[in-house]
């Protein structure tokens, strides 16, 4: 029988930090995590024996290990549900999750909730981005962390921001340097033009030393780092993929690869989250799903959420302030955005927009007359696929803006979250039994 005051969804740094602090105030916590181990994407566990051969940020690792130690000492106030996927909230306040180990849906009726489901990568649609062999940089990186092995065959890393840099360096360290690292922006030029951003970047010493370490790794492995360079098209080739690119001077270059890793930034993963303003039940979002600030800030944000929840439940808790640390993470993110600004969408008609159902930009053009996010969704089926628009909402919004229909990407989801958020089997639903009290009071 599940016993908990607070449900925490997501076992990455934010969720685990929140759970640990909530337990310290005397509350009972149910922590659910979709994977079979805690860690989230950032601390995806290595399955081999001994230390993972992939080098990680030592500071993050120590902090994470300290959190895991606290989890191990949490005792019976913490209930850990692994391989359990949050599905949604019933009208009566039951939080449903798919317990995949038990092959049944279960529910809790907590007194408060922390949602800590992380971020989701942004990838700009280019012709061929839907092909097998093309994955997000984060997706490739979690596999590298999990297996300790780089993928076989030539690989190209392209996009923008710090994550492609980190992954390319980790590949090089694993003995499989990418053919090149392509950065869409021109970070050095942008930094010189925006001294304030440069200064903010320099103020974050740990981030700077981490970036320099990656740069050194790439330099040693002779990996070309091309700025102002982007992928224009991807085609299937007999041995993998043919990736066409262009640089700022208009020079084109074609790479023949087995794998292409793409990444154009991170967004908060807010699709289908119960709102923070839900009447009655305190709900806090924490970590990258509230605001993308990175792993270190996620721990602070999780602790801040725990404090909010403890206060809302009138549970005595130590006063702590997290604003300064969150603010410094915010400064760093702003500096990174200034150096690698979000690119504008330039999408050819035959480019796949919806990766779930294969809808193309040309299909959007045929939707003339759709005057709102709602019509674009229900008539055009954009953002209606299994991913619920996580990977097409932004492109759909920008395509719509070209036809003078303006809305925010999240408007495509409508005003009511569409639950269940993830595939759930009828058998698991049928095995659901609503007799598991959750709250101890």
């Amino acid at each position, binding site marked *: 029988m599940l016993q908990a005051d607070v449900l925490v969804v997501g076992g990455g740094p934010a969720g685990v930090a929140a759970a640990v602090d909530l337990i310290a105030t005397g509350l009972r916590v149910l922590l659910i995590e979709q994977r079979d181990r805690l860690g989230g994407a950032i601390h995806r566990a290595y399955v*081999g024996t001994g230390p993972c051969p992939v080098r990680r940020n030592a500071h993050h690792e120590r902090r994470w290990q300290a959190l895991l130690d606290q989890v191990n000492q949490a005792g019976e106030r913490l209930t850990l549900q692994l*391989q359990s996927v949050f599905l949604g909230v019933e009208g009566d306040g039951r939080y449903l999750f798919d317990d*995949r180990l038990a092959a049944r849906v279960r529910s809790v009726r907590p007194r408060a909730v922390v949602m800590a489901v992380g971020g989701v990568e942004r990838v700009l649609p280019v012709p061929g981005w839907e092909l097998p*062999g093309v994955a*997000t940089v984060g997706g*490739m990186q979690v596999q590298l962390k999990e*297996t300790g092995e780089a993928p076989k065959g030539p690989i190209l890393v392209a996009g923008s921001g710090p994550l492609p840099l980190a992954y390319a360096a980790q590949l090089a360290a694993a003995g499989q340097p990418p053919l090149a690292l392509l950065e869409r922006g021109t970070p050095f030029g942008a930094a010189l033009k925006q001294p304030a951003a440069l200064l903010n970047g320099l103020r974050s010493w740990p981030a700077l030393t981490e970036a320099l370490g990656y740069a050194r790794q790439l330099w040693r492995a002779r990996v070309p780092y091309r700025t102002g360079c982007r992928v224009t098209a991807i085609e299937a080739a007999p041995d993998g993929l043919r990736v066409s690119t262009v640089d700022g001077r208009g020079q084109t270059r074609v790479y023949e690869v087995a794998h292409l890793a793409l990444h154009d930034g991170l967004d908060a993963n807010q699709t289908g989250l119960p709102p923070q303003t839900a009447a009655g039940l305190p709900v806090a979002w924490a970590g990258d799903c509230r605001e993308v600030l990175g792993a270190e800030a996620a721990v602070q944000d999780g602790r801040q959420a725990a404090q909010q929840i403890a206060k809302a439940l009138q549970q005595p808790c130590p006063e702590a302030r997290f604003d300064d640390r969150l603010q410094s993470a915010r400064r760093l993110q702003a500096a990174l955005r200034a150096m690698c600004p979000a690119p504008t969408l330039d999408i050819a008609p035959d480019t796949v927009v919806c990766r*779930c159902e294969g809808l193309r930009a040309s299909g959007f053009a045929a939707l003339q007359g759709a005057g709102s996010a709602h019509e674009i969704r229900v008539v055009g089926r954009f953002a209606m696929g299994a991913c619920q628009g996580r990977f097409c909402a932004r492109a759909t919004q920008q395509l719509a803006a070209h036809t003078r229909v303006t809305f925010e990407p999240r408007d495509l989801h409508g005003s009511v979250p569409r639950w269940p958020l993830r595939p759930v*089997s009828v058998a698991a639903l049928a095995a659901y039994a609503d007799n598991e009290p959750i709250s101890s009071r």
Partner: protein
Amino acid sequence: MIDDTFFWLGHPVDFRPGETFAAALRRAGLDDLGPAMGQLRGRYFCGIGACQACLVSVNGAAPVEACLTPARAGVQVTLAALPACEVHRVAS
């Protein structure tokens, strides 16, 4: 290092305990997971269960994300069946 096997469309695929189905499929060079909705292919993409492009069926059960699900020895794994609405679309 490798000490277990599952079956992808009947073919043996080795994995290490703790690894996801997706990681083992990648090592085996199985990037293209077969025909999926909208004339696309089943494939690994996001690695965190968000994109739903790597849904597989284990021993004929309901779809699960290959990128999240720990591999198990001896099971038969296929790409998850196309949703009914796609079948309808093909038929109409």
